[in-house]
């Protein structure tokens, strides 16, 4: 009988797909979604990931302009979607605009491996449609208060990875960080929770590893 080597990649699965993985970054207004993007971009580029970015804003291209100006990534790899009134429609009920933008990036950049999609700032109930993304992060921050996980918002409960950002601010806003993490783990029933300080990049390596392990499969 054929002895199948567990590490051998069988013929039918050898090639990679021609379209990139899509990862959503959602969360309340000002929690640090763009700051996290700005920390993720150089790390993915450093590990050799072929990357593009889509940002969502209500009526401007503010976040896209900020990422383009940062010089972290070629400006043509950053697209802006203007969502109009309701930021969550564009990632949940009717994600067509974002899907078209992602398709566009797939076409323009053959070999593209990863598209990061930042949603417009919203509330705790926002979530991504799995028609749009393969995996999604929800970014909350300690300055929003340590009771946020306890409030069991849909975003906090159902995201694939919860990121608690601005850990550096805990002492200034009288937040009990260990308790916040404990309660986040409780409501998420074992789904991952990671801590970051996106002002200086603490904890971001672990976010990169998590995304790579869950959707890139390149190592």
């Amino acid at each position: 009988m054929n002895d199948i080597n567990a590490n051998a990649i069988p013929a039918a699965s050898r090639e990679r797909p021609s379209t990139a993985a899509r990862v959503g970054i959602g969360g309340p207004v000002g929690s640090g979604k763009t700051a996290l993007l700005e920390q993720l971009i150089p790390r993915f580029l450093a590990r050799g990931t072929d990357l593009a970015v889509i940002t969502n804003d209500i009526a401007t291209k503010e976040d896209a302009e900020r990422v383009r100006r940062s010089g972290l990534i070629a400006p043509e790899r950053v697209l802006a979607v203007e969502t109009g009134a309701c930021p969550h429609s564009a990632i949940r009920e009717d994600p067509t605009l974002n899907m078209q933008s992602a398709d566009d990036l797939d076409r323009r950049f053959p070999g593209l491996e990863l598209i990061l999609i930042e949603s417009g700032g919203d509330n705790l109930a926002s979530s991504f449609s799995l028609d749009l993304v393969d995996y999604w992060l929800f970014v909350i921050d300690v300055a929003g208060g340590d009771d946020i996980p306890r409030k069991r918002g849909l975003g906090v409960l159902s995201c694939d990875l919860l990121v608690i950002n601005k850990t550096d601010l805990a002492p200034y806003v009288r937040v009990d960080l260990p308790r916040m993490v404990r309660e986040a783990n409780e409501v998420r029933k074992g789904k991952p929770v990671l801590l970051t300080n996106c002002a200086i990049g603490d904890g971001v390596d672990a976010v990169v590893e998590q995304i790579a392990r869950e959707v890139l499969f390149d190592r």
Partner: protein
Amino acid sequence: MLRLTRVLGHATEPQLAETLHRLEHGGTVERLKLSRADTARKRLHAFTDRGTEVGVMLDRSEQLSNGAVLLLEPTRAIVVALEEPQWLALAPRDAAAALELGYFCGNMHWKVRFAGEYLHVSLEGPRETYLERLAHLVANGSISVIGDD
């Protein structure tokens, strides 16, 4: 980790069905258990029922579904097995309660199915989470949960 980059076919296709049937005897057919929600994903890190670690990475044009064959080797296959969808059956007290319930479920983005006098909510997470959200409607008597005492 095993990368699975294609849907090779469907377990119901006659030729594949025959091959799978033979493998059930002479080799192994591993099941990749997925929820209905997860089948929308094109990338997925998971384990089969035999503990094989897999990375599913499909083109956007491909679709995971119950019976999708992702690997076919001389002695092994991997087939998607959809976990049965589970439904929470709710009975509104009257028309006003029905309107309120429908509006509420829509607001929650829940997937529903209309079943005559009942509304069925697709459970894509723990049942208790749904009951918690509906607690105010149960408490004021607007709705009752069918199958609960």
